[in-house]
């Protein structure tokens, strides 16, 4: 693999190889979690179906749209920096950051609702999985936002250029992972009966 020097935009995978190792490891954690959910559900289909209806799927839909939009914004940001427009890149990334914040806000309202109803990890197996999975993902949204902000700040300061913007692609790749996981989590936990 070539080292150093400008990396052309067409390199595959985009961004730093290290982030891809990290992404794969993270996906593995989520995959194990999803599989555990699915296998446990087999034994408790009625319990899962019943308590699934207590979830606010409208809020989750808003969050799904927020994350899809954020991924689109990130794509625009990467496109902008490839054109050499680092200021526009920063703006797009801040937009994605805002969508992430919206996600956290909506999700926090959901948590507040559950907590006020006295629901905890020990309430039942469904809530255990629901709270664990979504909160683990919640933490990833926060980490992703930190990365988006770091990229946006560096981009605004002219830290990336048309020739050298591996960092932008790295941040974008991680954020897409966060989005992608939610796109599995949403139907799995909120919708599928």
């Amino acid at each position, binding site marked *: 693999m070539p080292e150093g020097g400008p990396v052309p935009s067409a390199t595959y995978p985009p961004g730093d190889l*290290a982030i891809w190792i990290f992404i794969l*490891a993270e996906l593995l*954690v989520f995959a194990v979690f999803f599989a555990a959910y699915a296998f446990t559900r087999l034994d408790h289909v009625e319990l899962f179906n019943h308590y699934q209806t207590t979830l606010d799927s409208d809020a989750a839909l808003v969050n799904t749209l927020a994350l899809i939009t954020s991924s689109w914004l990130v794509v625009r940001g990467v496109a902008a920096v490839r054109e050499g427009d680092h200021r526009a890149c920063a703006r797009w990334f801040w937009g994605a950051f805002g969508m992430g914040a919206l996600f956290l806000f909506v999700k926090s309202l959901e948590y507040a609702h559950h907590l006020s109803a006295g629901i905890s990890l020990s309430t039942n197996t469904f809530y255990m*999985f629901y709270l664990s999975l979504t909160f683990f993902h919640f933490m990833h949204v926060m980490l992703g936002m930190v990365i988006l902000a770091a990229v946006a700040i560096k981009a605004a300061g002219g830290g990336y250029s048309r020739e050298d913007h591996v960092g932008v692609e790295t941040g974008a790749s991680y954020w897409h992972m966060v989005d992608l996981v939610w796109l599995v989590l949403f139907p799995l936990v909120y919708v599928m009966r």
Partner: protein
Amino acid sequence: MQYKSQAVAKPYFIAAIGLFIGQILFGLILGLQYVVGDFMFPEIPFNVARMVHTNLLIVWLLFGFMGSAYYLVPEEAERELHSPGLAILMFWIFLVAGALTVLGYLLVPYSGLAQMTGNHLLPTMGREFLEQPTITKVGIVIVALAFLYNVGMTVLKGRKTVVSLVLLIGLLGLALLFLFAFYNPDNLAKDKYYWWWVVHLWVEGVWELILGAILAFVLIKTTGVDREVIEKWLYVIIAMALITGIVGTGHHFYWIGAPEYWQWWGSIFSALEPLPFFMMTVFAFNMVNRRRRNHPNKAAVLWALGTAVMAFLGAGVWGFMHTLSPVNYYTHGSQITAAHGHMAFYGAYVMIVLTMISYAMPILRGRQAANSNLSQVVEMWSFWLMTVSMVFITLFLTGAGILQVYMQRYSTDPLPFMVVQEKIALFYWMREVAGLVFLIGLITYVASFFVGGRQPEPKATAMPEPAAG
């Protein structure tokens, strides 16, 4: 040596090796007591030997970590240590306190030691690995604070690198988590719960940061690979270690009265704890393959690679073996645990300290970069003797564990504990023999410091330009 104050690492390393020898001797006594129950009784009962064996391990690893930090931090920060005098003072305090504690274990009945040291004022004694008298624990905190102050000031005033930052976070976590050793609730479930915050979050949390930082430092020095590349790997590895390791604490909460969700959290996250160790192995071999030069200290590179492999096997594979709660239901607290404990501690923490000693000691003793060929050959012999015998210790204990679990817990007609112990005695004998080989390896290791002292050191050679691709 680039900075004079790095020399304070030397007494720490020597003390570490000295206590290591003590640990192994008590290990051999202990191993024999498994099959000859009254060996050395009543002078050294089993529980005392075990306490000394495990406490010496922890104390010498701490000496090793501190020595490593004192060597590494000035070089990374590109300035002298904040206070070499304080480092030496703390060395003596820690050594004397440690020696007095071990003597207390050996010479006074444990309850008498508790009385002598005023345990009733703040009861913290009597828990596995945290057996130290409260006053010793206070001493450990003082030494840790002084150490952190010293190292922290050096980092703050000097160049800040990812390696020194990760090391500092690891050491800070080590000190902070130790404070849970002072929390000793009456509720036994709670007691165990927080006890693991020290024990687990040390070895499967913050110590992994220390391990990663030291490994990264030695690889930067010996391979000449760009710091940026190595730091990137370090970030990914420690992030993964923390994600899996912190929640992985749950694998200790299955059967102690903690909430049921820990069965899931513990199983899922700790099942992934091998990942960072696997990455570490890939990382170490990758860096050595991409080396810019052949470092003259071949022994240090061997230790570094050995650490990565053995940590993955011992901590990763042997840990995974019994970490899922349905499996652990049967294997909990059996010889499987002992097998994992031995290889994980050796592979991850003993070997990383020996890696650092191997890299730093020749320089601390006034050489340019490496010991003579003769000394290195002896050291590499000791590497193989200790490592291979540890593999056998682990395999024999695993065999003993599988039989134990089957006969005592799994079969339709379970046998009592002591009956099973007699049936698996052969494995204990074989483990003891492997332990003797380990001791021979350790003696060889110590000998490597005393041979070939007058002979010249090998020269570094440049690597041929790598082919593109």
